[in-house]
């Protein structure tokens, strides 16, 4: 191998270690070692920064990503384990003319893929005429037989696809993989762009970079047109996600929020008479289009994988009837098969008469005798792997041979393997990728720029005017100098891709200019599951706060008496045991599990809940978990609980001060009011009864956070009457039953269908008498029995809310 050489024009010390490898294309320098003009201005500015400035800028970008809560999920033992977003801070820079050439080639490829798809699910000529082996398609789990003969809504199968491309040593581009099932990364590309905007905020380069944002709006409009054409108005569209345990769930929530689209899980949808509908708090709303981020085989357990728990029974019926469209159509995953690459060049000629403008990674299906012999002979320079694998060449599974060697388990000799299972295998040339600059920190406040291999992901969306490409995108950066595709395995980083113009681009406003006819958009539809999660989020946060106050009361008294057999301590222990709290544990495990449930509810509605709120809940969980290890019984634990109570107050303040008063906020508030009123009724029933220990009344006032009010209002020692008056019958005390039930009623009145045919709903008819009864009651009437009746009514209200709105 020839030795790497230094480029001829090294701009600064940062680049002193930037060596070019012979036979490898580089993004920054051309083959003669000259810097490519498209990088020149950026590099000049970058080279003038001090190491401290560079560090500060990169930190700004990372800080943005952390604040925005960008993460991706790793499959691991903890299903909710998240990883920081691995941004490579230096962008990949491409000239707009080069980008236009790439996109022209990919347009041709996208159209070809659409035609292949239409044939595979239509007349089947390609297989019948032996341009594609029948065995290959028949064996693919992604070729879905129920879709054969089904006409997709709007006439097209593919609507949103991506291509993984790389640059070969001669400087031309090639395709490593087509992503046609449910490509991810577009949302992350947006976040990368936000981050690089913080790192390089100056007018240059800013004004020269093509924007990404228009792409999404264009695609959403195309989706909405397909969802709801003129002859079928009022059909909505949404994003179908596998749910929070998926590794790209963050991106689904991000895109849903960014585009204002509903984020739906399988159970949010029901199918009746071949119509797919969303369960919302206002009843069933017809769906016209789904942007599918779930693998097709899991979309409908009736007709596809029967073990799927994330699908919707009957979804295929809605697709078959043409009432529901999918981006992309069910079954589009078959195009991702590695072996497809072996046949696309020929199919292009057969179907269009044209050769592919952008070649793909050379691929040989080993089912053919000649191809098998070729792969065997050239195994040294090949990646040999399952023909029906759909991951990208660098996502290597266990049964793969590279460069003539098996990875993972030994399988005997490669030639035996090829003979035995040839028709299940493909050989792909071991490609060489280009390198691009990446920053390598030296850990001492400085660093240097090093060449790293990269691939670029290009996103395309179908519009009525044709394929529309995201101008820029998402590059994967390898973690070592290895320029074979291997280095691109998981564990690398990602970079923003700038498509730049020589001149500043006209300043386009993202907002539509006002024409004086502003119409306020109707509030979005709230899916029942989202409302359900917000409702339970409200309940669990309140449940946590209530428990923290009770635990604090316990430890304060423990500190004062140092006697676990004090009647008040005993009473508190048995009271809390009824709620599953074991007060022999200093910080009971049940408290952690309440917080964790609250946080999971928030995760489930990440598209509708503030990032700050989620961070605050995660922080609360972290703090409380730490306390389980450190807190000592008595004063120390009481102080710890005070910290938690304050943190919870921060969360509820954040929510109630900042959350838009849409229906979701009401469900959160209803959950909170229900939980708080039930906890209060329960507390009063236990601690104001005749069997309550001495000092129980003070305890109730303390847990009810009403000590000061009590002193000011009554100027006397606590008595049963004063305590019940303040904590049950007071309309101005936000912890009193009357206040809370009044709030419940006001929320219920504002919900959809609060009145039907001029009559109050069942829900209101349950709340109203309860409210009136308490408003009219005297303290002496609030016996423990009466309080237990109130609790039963509250449970009924909760059930009615669930039945009416949350399913």
């Amino acid at each position: 191998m020839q030795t790497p050489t230094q480029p001829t024009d090294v701009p600064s010390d940062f680049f002193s270690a930037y060596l070019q490898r012979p036979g490898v294309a580089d993004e920054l320098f051309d083959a003669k070692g000259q810097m490519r003009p498209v990088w020149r201005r950026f590099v000049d500015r970058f080279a003038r920064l001090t190491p401290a400035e560079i560090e500060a800028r990169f930190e700004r970008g990372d800080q943005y990503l952390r604040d925005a809560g960008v993460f991706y999920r790793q499959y691991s033992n903890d299903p909710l384990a998240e990883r920081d977003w691995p941004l490579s801070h230096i962008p990949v820079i491409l000239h707009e003319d080069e980008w236009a050439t790439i996109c022209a080639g990919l347009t041709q490829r996208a159209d070809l893929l659409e035609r292949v798809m239409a044939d595979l699910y239509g007349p089947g000529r390609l297989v019948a005429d032996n341009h594609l082996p029948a065995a290959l398609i028949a064996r693919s789990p992604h070729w879905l037989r129920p879709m054969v003969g089904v006409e997709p809504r709007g006439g097209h199968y593919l609507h949103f696809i991506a291509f993984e491309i790389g640059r070969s040593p001669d400087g031309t581009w090639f395709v490593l993989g087509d992503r046609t099932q449910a490509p991810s990364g577009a949302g992350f590309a947006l976040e990368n762009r936000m981050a690089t905007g913080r790192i390089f905020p100056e007018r240059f380069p800013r004004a020269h970079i093509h924007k990404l944002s228009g792409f999404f709006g264009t695609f959403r409009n195309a989706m909405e047109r397909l969802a709801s054409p003129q002859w079928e108005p009022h059909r909505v569209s949404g994003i179908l996600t596998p749910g929070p345990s998926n590794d790209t769930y963050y991106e689904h929530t991000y895109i849903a929020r960014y585009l204002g689209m509903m984020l739906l899980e399988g159970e949010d949808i029901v199918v009746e008479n071949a119509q797919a509908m969303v369960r919302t708090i206002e009843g069933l709303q017809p769906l016209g289009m789904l942007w599918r981020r779930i693998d097709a085989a899991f979309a409908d357990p009736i007709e596809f994988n029967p073990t799927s728990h994330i699908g919707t029974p009957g979804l295929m019926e809605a697709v078959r009837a043409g009432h529901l469209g999918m981006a992309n159509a069910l079954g589009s995953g078959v195009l991702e098969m590695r072996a497809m690459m072996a046949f696309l060049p020929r199919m292009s000629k057969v179907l269009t008469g044209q050769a592919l403008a952008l070649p793909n990674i050379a691929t040989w299906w080993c089912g053919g005798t000649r191809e098998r012999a070729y792969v065997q002979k050239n195994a040294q320079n090949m990646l040999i792997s399952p023909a029906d694998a759909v991951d990208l060449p660098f996502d290597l599974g266990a049964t793969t041979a590279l460069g003539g060697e098996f990875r993972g388990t030994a399988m005997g000799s490669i030639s035996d393997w090829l003979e035995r299972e040839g028709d299940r295998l493909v050989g792909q040339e071991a490609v060489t990728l280009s390198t691009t600059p990446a920053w390598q920190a030296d850990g001492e406040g400085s660093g240097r720029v090093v060449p790293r291999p990269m691939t670029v992901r290009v996103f395309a969306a179908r519009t009525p005017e044709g394929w529309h490409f995201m101008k820029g995108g998402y590059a994967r950066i390898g973690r070592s100098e290895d320029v074979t595709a291997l280095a691109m395995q998981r564990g690398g980083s990602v970079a923003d891709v700038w498509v730049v113009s020589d001149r500043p681009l006209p300043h386009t406003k993202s907002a539509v200019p006002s024409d004086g006819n502003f119409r306020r958009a109707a509030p979005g539809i709230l899916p029942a599951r989202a409302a359900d999660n917000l409702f339970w989020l409200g309940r669990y946060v309140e449940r946590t706060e209530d428990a923290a106050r009770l635990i604090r009361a316990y430890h304060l008294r423990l500190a004062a008496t140092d006697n676990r057999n004090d009647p008040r301590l005993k009473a508190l222990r048995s009271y809390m045991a009824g709620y599953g709290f074991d007060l022999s544990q200093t910080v009971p495990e049940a408290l952690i599990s309440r917080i964790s449930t609250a946080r999971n509810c928030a995760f489930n509605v990440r598209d509708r809940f503030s990032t700050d709120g989620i961070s605050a809940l995660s922080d609360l969980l972290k703090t409380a978990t730490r306390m389980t290890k450190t807190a000592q019984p008595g004063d120390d634990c009481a102080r710890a609980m005070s910290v938690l109570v304050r943190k919870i107050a921060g969360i509820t303040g954040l929510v109630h001060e900042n959350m838009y008063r849409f229906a979701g906020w009401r469900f959160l508030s209803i959950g909170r009011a229900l939980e708080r009123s039930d906890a209060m009724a329960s507390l009063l029933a236990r601690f104001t009864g005749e069997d309550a220990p001495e000092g129980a009344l003070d305890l109730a006032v303390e847990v009810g956070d009403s000590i000061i009010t009590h002193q000011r209002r009554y100027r006397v020692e606590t008595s049963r009457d004063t305590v019940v008056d303040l904590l049950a019958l007071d309309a101005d005390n936000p912890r009193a039953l009357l206040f809370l039930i009044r709030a419940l009623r006001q929320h219920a009145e504002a919900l959809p269908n609060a009145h039907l045919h001029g009559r109050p709903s069942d829900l209101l008819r349950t709340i109203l008498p309860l409210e009136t009864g308490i408003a009219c009651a005297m303290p002496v009437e609030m016996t423990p029995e009466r309080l237990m009746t109130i609790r039963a009514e509250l449970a009924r209200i909760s059930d009615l809310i669930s039945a009416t709105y949350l399913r």
Partner: protein
Amino acid sequence: MLYDVSLTIEYNYAATSDRARNLVRLLPSDIAGVQQVRQRLLQVTPRPDERRDGVDFFGNAMSMVAWHHPIDAMSLNLTAKVERFDTIVPLDFSPRLAEFARDLSAVHGLGPDAPHHFASASPLVSPSPAMTAYARDLVDPDMTAMQGVEALGRALHRDMTFDPEATDVNTPPEEAFENRHGVCQDFAHVMIAALRGIGIPAGYVSGFLRTFAPPGQPRLEGADAMHAWVRAWVGQETGWIEFDPTNDQFAGTDYITVGYGRDYGDVAPVRGVMRTSGGQESRQAVDVIPLEGA
């Protein structure tokens, strides 16, 4: 032979949710040269809120039924009059196993009867080293494909014990084979896996057997419920043949076909989702009676 077929399947669900949907494959269809359906009727109770009858990819009749409210029981009643033609075991023009792969790869196309659908692993039936080795011991390259199919079917009948207690509907074929016990579904799945293992495309046939054998012949196993047997593709010349490993014979006039599939999953009489938290139980009753003078 003309048959009166009647079948009842009843399901009881322990707990129900707000709606239910089932895909039912019970109606027999016309098959050229094999059977003709004179009349057929599938009644579903309680009456579903929606029902659509259609044909699936493999040409089987399917009925999609759904309820928009909770149900705690469902019953399916099939009545049909089906004429089963006398068929003879075809003369053996199938290629020798040594040349079989070439014959198979010369077939293009992915129509419902194309052998490629049935040549490799399907969701419930994958070839396994043990079953493939078993099959290899029974055949040699000079045998024809058809001889191979028959040898394997008869060997499985000999080596496996019919035992309704040993397996259930979810038992994987590897397990049934290892224990050499099972019911018709297991016999069929094991034979399919073994045939695929030696390169012969094989699929699953669901259907009925006549309830009482003709005088002087033993009553067939599996006649009191829906039955399953195997079809195998033995070359372009002969196409598909059907063998019943449970009863050690080629499927003949005693057999009425309901569905063809790659495995049980493609032809399961009821596929459904009954969003239910509890268990469910089912009961099946079948009668297949030859009409006199037919």
